[in-house]
């Protein structure tokens, strides 16, 4: 079968060797750092660092490419929306105004505005690869175990893990159904008009939903028959003890987080301002 996107694959890399809990803690620290700051230097460093981490993980870009591009579209929409609703956000933040040219009516492109949008964009870029990497490089069961470790109910952890695990299955199912529908003459290829394609894709959605419901029914039966949910606690076959490398990874990200907070506090502001 074709490799499915966002599927967890066993790869021998330092990233994969970290325990699920480590990866989760690292992801949280990373996200906090990225959310907290608009400092171009920190964000820029994080983008480069995330690319390096991605390389180390040996995960192929192809595996996340679809979702990656999908998020890029949202990034674009986000940027445009900010500009439409608040064209002078950058001016407000950086307290100077350098007009480049007027687009239409009250919309004028400013240096500050452009710089602000650049920051938003690299913010996205600093976080997307890491978040996606987390999804494809964390064994879903270990992920469930680690959620449980940081105090979340194992039932919630397990539902998340099972959802993650079914991503490839649902993709296979989707492909099969789409083949069957195409064979009946429902055109989903690029030859058909976009409106038709959207209309036609409902003919895949219906069977997909029904077969997914059937799947959920079977698996929940199987789980109950094997005593899932019996006790308040459970143990984990695939749970792993923390090793040195786990502490090292967490420490590294903690340092990054603290530096970022320190810089923010020192500057008294989340933004790096090149205009003053």
């Amino acid at each position, binding site marked *: 079968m074709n490799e499915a996107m966002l599927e967890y694959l066993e790869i021998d890399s330092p990233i994969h060797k970290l325990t699920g809990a480590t990866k989760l803690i690292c992801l949280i620290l990373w996200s906090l750092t990225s959310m907290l700051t608009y400092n171009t230097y920190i964000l820029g460093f994080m983008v480069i660092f995330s690319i390096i981490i991605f390389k180390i993980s040996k995960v192929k870009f192809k595996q996340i490419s679809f979702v990656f591009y999908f998020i890029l579209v949202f990034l674009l929409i986000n940027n445009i929306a900010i500009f439409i609703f608040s064209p002078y956000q950058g001016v407000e933040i950086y307290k100077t105004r350098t007009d480049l040219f007027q687009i239409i009516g009250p919309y004028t492109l400013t240096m500050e505005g452009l710089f602000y949008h650049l920051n938003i964009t690299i913010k996205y870029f600093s976080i997307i690869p890491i978040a996606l990497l987390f999804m494809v490089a964390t064994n879903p069961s270990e992920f469930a175990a680690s959620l449980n470790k940081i105090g979340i109910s194992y039932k919630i952890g397990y539902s998340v893990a099972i959802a993650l695990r079914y991503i490839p299955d649902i993709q296979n199912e989707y492909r099969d159904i789409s083949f*069957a529908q195409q064979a009946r*003459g429902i055109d989903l290829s690029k030859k058909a008009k976009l409106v038709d394609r959207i209309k036609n894709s409902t003919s895949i959605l219906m069977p997909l939903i029904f077969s997914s419901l059937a799947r959920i029914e079977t698996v929940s039966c199987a789980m109950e*028959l094997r*005593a899932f949910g019996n006790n308040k606690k459970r143990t984990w076959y695939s749970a792993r003890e923390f090793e040195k490398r786990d502490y090292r990874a967490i420490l590294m990200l903690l340092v990054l987080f603290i530096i970022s907070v320190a810089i923010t506090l020192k500057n008294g502001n989340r933004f790096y301002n090149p205009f003053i």
Partner: protein
Amino acid sequence: MKKKVIEFIDFSFKYRAQANPTLNNINLTIYEGEKILIVGPSGSGKSTISNAINGLIPFRYEGDISGSLKINGKETKDLSIFELSNMVGTVLQDPDGQFIGLTVGEDIAFKLENDCVEQGKMKEIVKEAAKVVDIDTRLDSSPHKLSGGQKQRVSLAGVMVGDANILLFDEPLASLDPATGKTAIELIDKINKTSNKTVVIVEHRLEDVLYCDLDRIVVVEDGRIIQDANPNELLCSNILHETGIREPLYITALKYAGCKINSELKPENIYSLNIDKCKNSLNEWFESTKEEKTEIEEEIILELKNIKFKYNNKKNTLDDVSFKIHKGELVSIVGKNGAGKSTISKLICGFYQPYSGEILFKGRNIAKDTIKERAEKIGMVMQNPNQMISKTMIFEEVALGLKVRGVPEEQIKDRVFETLKICGLYEMRNWPISALSYGQKKRVTIASILIINPEVIILDEPTAGQDFRHYTEIMEFICELNKKGVTIIMITHDMHLMLEYTNRAIVLSEGIKLMDDSAANVLTDEKIIKAANLKETSLYQLAINANLKNPREFVQRFIDYDRRIRKI
């Protein structure tokens, strides 16, 4: 006195959503260490019985219970599904659906995890259980990468770690190829004999289960137990025939030959069968029947030439496969799970492109045709009707193929009605699809392909999971279509299906075509049977045991005679 482990006393059950009870006054006692088979047609209530034993009833599927059901002496109503899971281990029908863990080891451990067994001990128990079912070398692989038989071993190990003293199997053979099914039955037998666990099997493939000794067979019909007897007794009675359960083929053959089946014959197993008394009648029957010559049209409708194909960078899924299909033929493509059967259909329909080789339709290369263009000539019916049905009403569903082709409304109506009549669905034309049975849904999917008027129809496992009655219904309908001139290709691992209905079988193994011959020849060729994970038909064994001159010929004559009798 043996210990009672399962005891139904006047047990009745009515699902909350249904008007009538599914089980009526069930009285059944199963003793420790017994091996019991529960058979019955679809909807007879046999799965309800198994759900009552493992606790899905009443804890998951609610309804009204009267009477009593005791497991290990305890009333199930007063327990919980978790307590029951410590006594009853259930292996569900669909091996893919029941995998929870990401690796084999983790899946086997699932019950232990929920019981809070400490990790070190858990790993030990898992290893032990895996060893019993012979899967201990694959603990780290993903269950989805295993073969059908291995998957089942994993599910089995998963219930064995729980130390339950009752093992319940829900249609264990449904998705296995014949040889793997045979091994599965052997394994269940071994566990039953060595561990003194009580085994309850729910299955309608009677002949395959009979391969190893059974203590009793319980026949269920309309929510009642109508027979509870040892295999010999049951096979001598006429009850199987009456309830629409397929009797073993060798029994049918003996009946055709005019032998009386009684317990002296020991009919429970082809190997235990006391054949001496029947030898003469079998011989006479053999001499009196003749093989029928089926005429094949010369015109070739579909041809595959040296097809090679692989998914991504793996090894070839299909390696240099060539065959021809004649117009009006009914051909089956057989082989073990993963032999490349489904891939062939996907290539023919254009879902994937072969990387070398040609597919010719009436002599024309169709490499450049789109999926939609091919669909006008070659229809494909998938195994699971739920994957194909996308509308809520029967009429809409069948009309869909014409609508997207822009056929005028008037014409659509006429053609849909005509197709529905052919498929025996005309009376239900205004019904919602959700009101149909699985077999009827299957018909709807065939109708929705048929309406496009393809000359060839490919059916993927058309009868999977069907009891004998529905199986016959579906197959007779398909033969009917075939007689109207539609060429039919069936992909299957059901040996009965291939033997009874198709004239020719193409055998695939590991992506290579092994044989292309009559079904009777395929199922009597030991080398091919072994290589393709098939199972030799019991008819052949019967003929050998009876010292018939030409066992192969006997099988062929039986099939021809059988078809004549059943008029198909």
